[in-house]
């Protein structure tokens, strides 16, 4: 009798198994670190537009909307079985890497991508422009600049700063970098650094740029010592940066989508991380004039935006 009961159970289970088979079409899973953050949101929006144009399906998972994101993401990956997971921001990438290490991952908007744990099947669009190109442009604009200084936090930016130093050295520019552990060290670090340099470079370091007060502190100190500031984003032009070369967010989104399509079609080699393809060059002529800083007038052809003084 027992064996009959067992057989009944097996038959019942078999019925369930046979009825299984509602697999859904493959799609891209977009994991966003925080969709309320403008940069992440903009990139996501452009990414989806390209997917839509190419008739791809996607599912979005915003980490800021889930209390137990790790478990829920794991569950979602199981449900959706995406061909690729697009991670916007470091938090999204770190989590996805943890829960789906064998899935194809594509990242963007992650500061200093070289610090990430990059495995097989990982692709990306860097957050920072190519430092070699940036330094080339800087030298083109300001041929007399020989020494550039920057502040950074070792945990967030060490690899990026090493790349900058290497590229700068090749192009004959000396980089003096000063590490800080938190924003309170900015004042002392600038006092030490500014006398030694011709220009200060603001990189996207989240510890150095931890608040508006930190930003103001940097520009006040630079102004006091009459040092020009170059920045990675044009949001610092209003603060007094003389030049900014910004990676274009919409382009990063579209570029990521193009890369995703190529990854899906196996048309890109593993481990590819592209530099942002689009950028905007903004020159603050007002700040330049105030500093009486000479620059190469021929370089004006390369500028997208020129900011004059308000009269």
């Amino acid at each position, binding site marked *: 009798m*027992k064996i009959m*009961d*067992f057989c009944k159970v097996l038959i*019942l*289970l078999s019925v*369930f*198994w046979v*009825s*299984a*088979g509602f697999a*859904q079409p493959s799609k891209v899973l977009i994991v966003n*670190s*925080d969709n309320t*953050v*403008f*940069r992440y949101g903009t990139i996501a929006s452009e990414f989806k537009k390209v997917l839509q144009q190419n008739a791809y399906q996607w599912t979005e998972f915003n980490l800021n*909307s889930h*209390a*137990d994101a790790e*478990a829920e993401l*794991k*569950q979602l*990956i*199981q*449900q*959706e*079985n995406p061909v690729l997971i697009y991670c916007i*921001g*470091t*938090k999204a990438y770190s989590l996805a890497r943890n829960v789906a290490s*064998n899935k194809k991952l594509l990242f963007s*908007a992650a500061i200093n991508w070289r610090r990430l744990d990059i495995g097989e099947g990982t692709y990306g669009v860097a957050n920072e422009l190519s430092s070699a*190109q940036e330094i*080339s442009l800087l030298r*083109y604009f300001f041929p007399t600049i020989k020494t550039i200084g920057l502040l950074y936090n070792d945990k*967030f930016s060490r690899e990026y700063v090493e790349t900058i130093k290497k590229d700068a050295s090749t192009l004959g520019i000396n980089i003096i970098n000063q590490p800080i*552990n938190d924003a309170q060290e900015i004042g002392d670090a600038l006092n030490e650094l500014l006398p030694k340099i011709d220009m200060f470079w603001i990189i996207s*370091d*989240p*510890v150095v*740029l*931890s*608040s*508006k007060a930190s930003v103001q502190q940097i520009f006040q100190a630079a102004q006091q010592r009459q040092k020009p500031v170059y920045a990675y984003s*044009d*949001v610092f*032009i*209003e*603060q007094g940066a003389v030049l900014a070369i910004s990676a*274009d967010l919409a*382009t990063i989104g579209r570029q990521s989508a193009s890369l995703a399509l190529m990854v899906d079609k196996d048309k890109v080699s593993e481990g590819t991380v592209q530099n942002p393809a689009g*950028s905007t060059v903004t020159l603050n002529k007002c700040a330049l004039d105030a500093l009486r800083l000479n620059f190469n007038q*021929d*370089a004006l*052809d*390369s500028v*997208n935006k*020129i*900011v*004059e003084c308000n009269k």
Partner: protein
Amino acid sequence: MIKYLYTLLVGALVLNSSAFADASASNDDLEKELAYLAAERQVVVTASKMEEHVDKTVATTTVITQDDIAHIGARNLLDVLRLVPGIGITQSQLGIREIEVRGVKTLASEKVQVMLNGHPLDHNLQNAGSTWVYDDLPVDTIKRVEVVRGPGSALYGANAFLAVINIITQNAKDLNGLHTSAGWGSFDTQQYRASWGKQFKNSAEAALHFNFTDTNGIKSPISADSLSVQGLSSAAPGKSQLTEGRYDLEWQLGYQDFKLDGRFINKKTGTFFGVATVLSDGRTQQDYNDYFLRLSRTWKIQDKFTVDTQVFHDSYSADNIWQIAPTQFFRTGFQDTRTGGEIQANYHISDAQTVISGFSYAKEQQDNLIDQLGIDSEHLIPTLPTTEERIRRRWGVYIEDVWDPFKNVRMTLGARYDRYSDFGGTFNPRMGFNWEFIKNYSLKFSYGTAYRAPAFGELGLVNNPVVLGNPMLKPEEVKTFETGIIAHPVAGLTTQATYYHSAINQLISQVSGQTTAFRYDNNGSVVAEGVELETRYDFDGNLQGSYISANHILQHSVQLGQQLADVPRHRTNLIVNWAFDNTWSSFAHVLIKGNTLRNLGDTRNDVPGYALFDMGLLGKNMFGKKVDISFNVYNLFDKRYYDPAPTSLSFIGDYQMPGRAFFGHVSLRF
């Protein structure tokens, strides 16, 4: 020429050219950029660094997720816990089930601290322990269960002695609508659940859970009781009377930084066979009401400095009618309350170091005693009280430092001092490190002590013909050190090996008395040591969602040179979850338990070991992702097996556990 080359360079870089603009990015844009940088910064400096990743903690931790619970097809909390390495579940004579941790178990499981959303549930001050109402906690509303094995008093205070089990339930964000579920199974078991949660635009949020459970119980055969063996009139031989009905209502209300949460439980249950080793004919009824109410707020003083504050009120009341002979009934009851508050400061000194420290105060009180006797449950008259009204005040201070001196090293150092109005003070430190000595290979070491406060029943049991309390009792103490390796040799594979050694002193136990047979005293010690081996492999690709896992424990607990009775020397769990596609998955579990020894002088044979096979099928996210269905078979091969009856009940024989049992479950989301 140079100009031309640079123009080309810029051209390559500037693909997205824009028209010249008169104005630069606004101040608003700076704020957006800073918000982005702040979001990126969170990856290293999290808002609550104390929520450590399992790999990085110094403690031995197992996390069971909502997804795991669904696969297991768990009917209650203990169905979940029995898969955790180092934990075993057994039946007790009173009906509640015992949680054995690392080779040590007691009837009331008072050496395990169970918490709901971080709030301790040891509300029963008379007998201690949380299993009185929480052993069969419904699992439908659970988001995660975190089991930390080892001492936790340095942070959590009393009774975090052998393990801390923290149950996290779904909040408003998790629910975001109405969830309902229903389950039916063997023993006329039925479970219903309704949950609703919503986040409002004005930063208010609300989550409500309601559960109802009813069962006729496992109806185990009881061949004899203390009356039948004397030839007296008795319900034995008969069957256990473990009927049960319970209601749970939980609420989580939030507005801005304030939160009001709590849970109410009413549980009415029969008994396995009873308090006086006499089989009830169904007229024994235990009636428990338990609730807690907590108001909390987090104050953000600075980005790096936050303060958590809370006030709480816990209440637990019992009103039990015990049948101690066919025509003899005994009614006991009491009410316990605990009212207090806690303030905890969290200071993130740097990216690599966080310190928390706090102060807690609580007043514990027992009153509304009921003691009655009678020939039937409807006609009872007051009798001498068997316990005392009692008030206890306690406070504690604690500090813990979690420091990463290097990227691959985490050190934890903490200590807590608690002072009680009845037995004095106790100091408990905790220290440990986690060192990732090779990428994906970490070594753990920790040492800590913990205490278990004497229960009111142990301090003040009076007028009991068998055992008396002892107001001079000191807390039980345990010193534990453990070390282990956790490794991820290949992607998807996690393995862990842990060795532990615990020395338990000042055990509160029953010793021979002068006016009665027994009295409580601090007497004896136990040394428990063992090895826990765990591994899990998560498949990927087309098999995403499938996993296999196994855990095996070898444990050796010794008292007076003898292996402790009624706990096995080894236990193994083998688990396979196979995802056929995005919807359907099948789960199989084998529990292999070794023989359990008897006490010295108990001439019965060892309780034989057994292997149980459970199997389940789960369909998730069907019909527009709104429906989940599961069907589980427990003890598929209908294995007859027994949990040990203690030596004092040797005449009854061991407790026969249920044969093949079924449970089906449907969940709907709106």
